[in-house]
């Protein structure tokens, strides 16, 4: 049973409850100009049920994504702290008792030591709550409309990503035939938001950060897509489900599945570097290079806007790791006792862990160097990878027909 089927059943149950409610509302008011009745009618149709089911599916995907977001941020902070020989945030669940005391009006107790002896996952909660309470500043000379639109574009396009990648073939909010293309399209909306908010802030640091971001993301789109093209060529589809199935189907020695990172190792390497640049993490975090550009294009954003920027970047990182998993690491494929969804998340977290290690152990590279790397090294490499795949898929089988070569690929 797929996620959509489950959502469909849930939707049928909900509709059974909702229709009488709407009909009751229709009875309260005169029938003309009251949409409640129409809504009730529409919900009963197939289209209405499907829409309802989609609503549920997307919400579940969103919730899973947001849970993962908190986990990823927590992982980043804790692993970074361990790399640096520290302990990282240690806010314990006991601190919630203070919250209880305050809510119930008891006398406050002060146990700092106990508050700071936990695993620290509540730190993200505290950061989030605080961000809501902060003042939202719009600089006096900023372009107010674009200043507001920038975060909307960036954050919505990032959150959109969450609905697009499947956790397994049965657990997908959407499994469009062109799924990966849509994901990459959503990925490339973000530079517009970055450029918009960088320009609208009326701040030189923001503007340079926005320009850098645009230049970097645009120049890395090309090798990124070219390195993906090999996988598409091999699978003959943009559909994540088909790509993962193809990886499972092609076997190697001892019948082991030949995931794409083995034949297309160059493509895998290029893709990992490009996606790292695409999600703007060290060593490619030039747009928010703290040393020279203060906070880059987010310099003028305060409060929840800034927090959402940060969250959206982690969502993009999570989505990037998910795409890498689908394309090269065999997606949700794995031995039986562990469910495929868990396999998928395990692989994603493995990549994220790898990124965190990179982030906290290398310096940042320079603007001109990043462009040189992108255009002069990664682009030719991705083309070579494409040539290899074309040889594998088209030319070698052609010759095998003529001269009876062994079927390797």
């Amino acid at each position: 049973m797929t996620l959509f089927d489950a959502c469909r059943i849930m939707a049928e149950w909900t509709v059974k409850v909702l229709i009488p409610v709407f009909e009751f509302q229709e009875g309260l008011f005169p029938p003309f100009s009251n949409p409640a009745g129409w809504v009730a009618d529409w919900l009963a149709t197939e289209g209405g049920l499907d829409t309802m089911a989609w609503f549920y599916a997307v919400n579940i995907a969103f919730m899973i994504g947001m849970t993962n977001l908190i986990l990823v941020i927590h992982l980043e902070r804790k692993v970074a702290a361990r790399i640096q020989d520290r302990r990282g945030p240690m806010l314990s669940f006991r601190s919630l008792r203070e919250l209880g005391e305050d809510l119930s009006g008891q006398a406050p107790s002060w146990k700092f030591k106990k508050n700071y002896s936990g695993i620290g996952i509540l730190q993200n909660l505290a950061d989030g709550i605080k961000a809501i309470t902060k003042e939202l500043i719009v600089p006096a000379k900023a372009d107010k409309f674009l200043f507001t639109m920038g975060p909307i574009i960036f954050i919505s396009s990032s959150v959109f990503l969450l609905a697009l990648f499947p956790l397994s073939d049965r657990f997908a909010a959407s499994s469009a035939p062109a799924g990966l293309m849509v994901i990459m399209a959503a990925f490339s909306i973000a530079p517009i938001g970055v450029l918009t908010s960088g320009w609208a802030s009326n701040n030189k640091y923001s503007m340079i950060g926005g320009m850098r971001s645009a230049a970097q993301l645009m120049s890395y789109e090309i090798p990124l897509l070219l390195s993906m093209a090999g996988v598409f060529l091999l699978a003959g589809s943009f559909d994540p489900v088909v790509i993962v199935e193809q990886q499972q189907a092609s076997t190697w020695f001892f019948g082991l599945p030949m995931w794409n990172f083995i034949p297309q190792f160059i493509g895998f390497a290029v893709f990992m570097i490009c996606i790292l640049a695409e999600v703007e993490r060290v060593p490619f975090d030039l747009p928010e290079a703290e040393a020279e550009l203060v906070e880059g294009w987010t310099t003028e954003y305060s409060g929840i806007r800034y927090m959402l920027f940060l969250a959206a970047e982690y969502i993009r990182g999570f989505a990037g790791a998910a795409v890498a998993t689908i394309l090269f690491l065999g997606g949700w494929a794995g031995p039986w006792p562990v469910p495929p969804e868990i396999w998928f998340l395990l692989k994603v977290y493995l990549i994220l862990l790898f990124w965190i290690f990179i982030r906290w152990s290398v310096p940042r590279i320079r603007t001109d160097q990043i462009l040189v790397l992108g255009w002069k090294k990664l682009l030719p490499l991705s083309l070579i990878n494409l040539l290899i795949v074309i040889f594998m898929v088209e030319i070698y089988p052609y010759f095998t027909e003529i001269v009876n070569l062994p079927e390797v690929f």
Partner: protein
Amino acid sequence: MAEMWISMGPQHPMTHGLWTLKVKVDGETITDADPELGYLHRSVEKMGERRKYFMNTTLTDRLCYASSTTWTHNYVLTVEELMNVEVPERAKYIRTIMLELQRLASHLMWAGAYMPDLGHITGALYFWRDRELFLNLLEVPSGSRLLYNYIRIGGVKRDLPDGFVEKTERVFKLFEKRLDEYADLFENSKIFRMRTEDVGNFTAAQAQNLGITGPNMRGCGTKFDLRKNDPYEIYEEIDWAIQTREAGPGYSDCFSRYMVRIDEMKESIRIIRDCFKKMPKGPTLASAIPVRAQGEAFRRTEDSRGEALMYVVGDGTDRPYRWKIKSPMFTTISACPHYLKGYKLADIPAIMGSIDICIGETDK
């Protein structure tokens, strides 16, 4: 993109202190620069004229927050020359040990502050972790973590406590092991080399004319170290060598300046070990220390950042008539348009970080 001025500071992660760097950029390329100081001008020189000679060590301690002992020592050396005070032999050794420990702590502070400039926060925390070792060592005889007030006119405040030598040796063993580990993380790292090599170049002749001294000058291959070239305390009797590096014939880049400081740290350890071997027994404070002074005197010492020079004029009272401080960073910052021009905006932190800025001494 048209040319524009960008103002960095006084609150900016690049500045490592309070100063403003205005750069004119054409796209991302720097075409002009204009440093501005004075946000931390505390008028130490004027205040010194109101205080007695021995009170001024409080102010000199706070001159440079990363390397306070070297400045106190410079002042004390100058005043001792002015007053003709003979310092006991053991005090000289202890002073040398403290100076070199301070140099280690200061260079570690610099290395820690330099890493975030290149986007490497882990490096900062590693170096600061090691700096803590040396702060603990400095705390043992002086009783304070950062501003020691340990070197006094006529000697040092008190003798080294028991077990100091063994503790120091333990720290050195650990630190040397870690320095070897860090070589893989920093100087052998490809990205670190990409960021630092061939960036912020200046030649030796330029450095001498513009007043860039200390490790920055030795990064050009110039063999000039005041510990050897104008010896004070017991540097003559100790077995050590001037550390130089050069990026090419007669010029330095950020990487050579980085390496000079790493080498100097290793050399400091050698000096301290030698001091422990040769240290005699005896008193640590001169018996008779005058209060008044007449005449003028100046001494220069090798601060962690370059040539430190103090010039004191006494008029026969117990307070200095004029007290002038020469900070090596003052002239180095003034020369920054010369070594910033032509590089990228992203190189500014890499360059300005590599010259080791300390605004406390610069603004006085």
